[in-house]
């Protein structure tokens, strides 16, 4: 069952619009909702994106061509999005930046992987920040050199 992409406006101010993306970004995704409400600053919330495949990345890169005059901020990027950004260059352009993203951390206590929301500023020298939860220090559960590669992309 296809989880078609839905784009909703969550904040609309004179110089800023924030969009919430829900569902999957694939070859059928279109982004007219964003291009038709262009503002000086655009915030794109990926929190509810369930999948992005390489065809979706291509559509996204094509879409970025149309919003070159705005400042674009990505927030709440899930692991699937980060993995694609790391694989395909062009997702981050000079006018785009990632404000926050999810990273996998392992809790020994619960023997579970927890997706922790990090701010890009928290990553210093490519190292995962120390995260504590319920008196337990969580262990970063990916390869740092690979996972934080996107922060080196400057567009």
């Amino acid at each position, binding site marked *: 069952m296809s989880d078609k992409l839905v784009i909703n406006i969550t904040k609309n101010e004179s110089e800023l619009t924030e969009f919430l993306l829900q569902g999957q970004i694939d070859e059928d995704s279109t982004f007219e909702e964003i291009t038709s409400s262009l503002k000086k600053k655009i915030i794109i919330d990926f929190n509810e994106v369930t999948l992005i495949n390489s065809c979706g990345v291509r559509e996204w890169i094509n879409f970025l061509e149309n919003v070159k005059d705005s400042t674009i901020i990505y927030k709440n990027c899930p692991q699937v999005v980060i993995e694609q950004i790391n694989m395909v260059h062009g997702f981050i352009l000079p006018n785009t930046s990632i404000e926050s993203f999810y990273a996998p951390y392992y809790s020994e206590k619960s023997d579970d992987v927890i997706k922790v929301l990090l701010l890009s500023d928290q990553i210093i020298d490519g190292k995962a920040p120390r995260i504590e939860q319920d008196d337990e220090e969580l262990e970063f559960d*990916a390869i740092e050199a690979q996972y934080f590669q996107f922060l080196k992309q400057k567009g």
Partner: protein
Amino acid sequence: MNFEILDSLFEPIVIVNKDNEIVYYNHMFSTFTKSSPRIIKNKKYLREIIATSFLSDMVELIFKTESATISKEELIDSLPDQEIHVIIKGAFLSEQSLVMISFNDITIEKNLYQKYRYQIDELKEIHHQIVQADKLSTIGEITASISHEISNPLTIASGTLELIKALFESDDLNSQKELLDSCLNDVIESFMRINNIIKGMKKFLHGNEDKKEYVAIEEIIENSTRLVNSQLKKSQVNLSVKNNTESNESIIYVNSLKMEQLFINLIKNSIDSINSTNGESDKSIQITLNETAMCYEILISDTGAGIPKEIQDKIFESFFTTKEVGEGTGLGLAIATKIIESYQGTLELLSPIAPTTFKITIPKMSTLSIASSTLNRDNDQEMNLNILVIDDEVKILNLFNESISSNNINVICASNPTEALNLIDDGRFNIIFIDYSMPEMNGDELAKKVRKLNYKGPIIYLTGKATDSKIKNDISSGLFNDHLLKPFNKEDITSIVKKWELGVK
């Protein structure tokens, strides 16, 4: 070898030893398997990460054979929450005695292929429905006049049956035997006529539209005109056919029902155009069949009202019609164009004013059968047998095509020697079948010409006439290698192909 260099690649790679233990994996392998370093560290063996037997078997085989590379397409369904189609390549690293495995994820390509194939199938179904709707509309329009066509023989049959009844009531039935026979024949003939009309309609509506066959254009024209005959009579339109080709059978490789639909659509348009003039003067449709070296050309001309300049560009578009609502679907010419284009032919308006003329161009059979067999060829399978059949009988060509044409047997047909000689130029044929008696030249004359073109493969005569001594002589002279006695069947063809498929020993 410094394996860390593999981390910069976007392709998942893992290196294992003889015991299936993971020696190294790159960053992408971790992403691909959704296994963090913590998980991989806890699992010693590759089979614990990707639990599929083919991978273990492949690794085992590479170690056993120490072969350079093995590549395989597989479905991995043992990873969490995903099914991945991959092309797996394994390479033996002889220096370290390890095996390096790379995974090329083709899931998206596979999914897109399935998705678009489904959409294409849907479009095909819709197209089929539109074509069917056009046929129903055509049948609907001609039903009234067809009922008239049926009522004539029905009247004859019922009148004759009355007479037969009267004859039975007469005292001297024996003396009336001759008359009785004649009456019965009349009744049978009348019912045959009715049967033919109904059969033609049924075939037009429900025949197999996928099956291509060798068929003469003359036969297609005859069948099409038979179906619209009642309309022609009703409108008092005279239809004549002029054949300027050299043979009586201009054979093409098409679906005959689709071609009939094309002709019926054009003839119906001509009748409507003639009816719209309301004139009593010349009411005629002329069908002319011409040929060039490569194609057949069919001109359909009528004395109707012509086509105004402002709509000439639109007439081939779907749903464009000048007819009243309910009288036409506006699909006739669009469907006709689609049909002829599917055989690499064209349909064009040659003259918009009286006589309004449409020209159908269709490539000759040899060209079409080559194109069709090339298109149908399975890419994965190498074509390994090309067979040329030269015969002027449609039934023989169709029998060959249906009997042996398959993924690895490509049957090319030619209906006359000239066509055949044009085809024998690159030595691609493994076996050539030649009809012994053809109007243009006999089989032995053609065989001599074929041999002159340096063809050294087997030539087989198709004959019902050649004498035993002639056959013996031609075989001993090396002109041909075998013969197939007419009438023959599928099994005869299959066994003679089997006999000669490896060529002349």
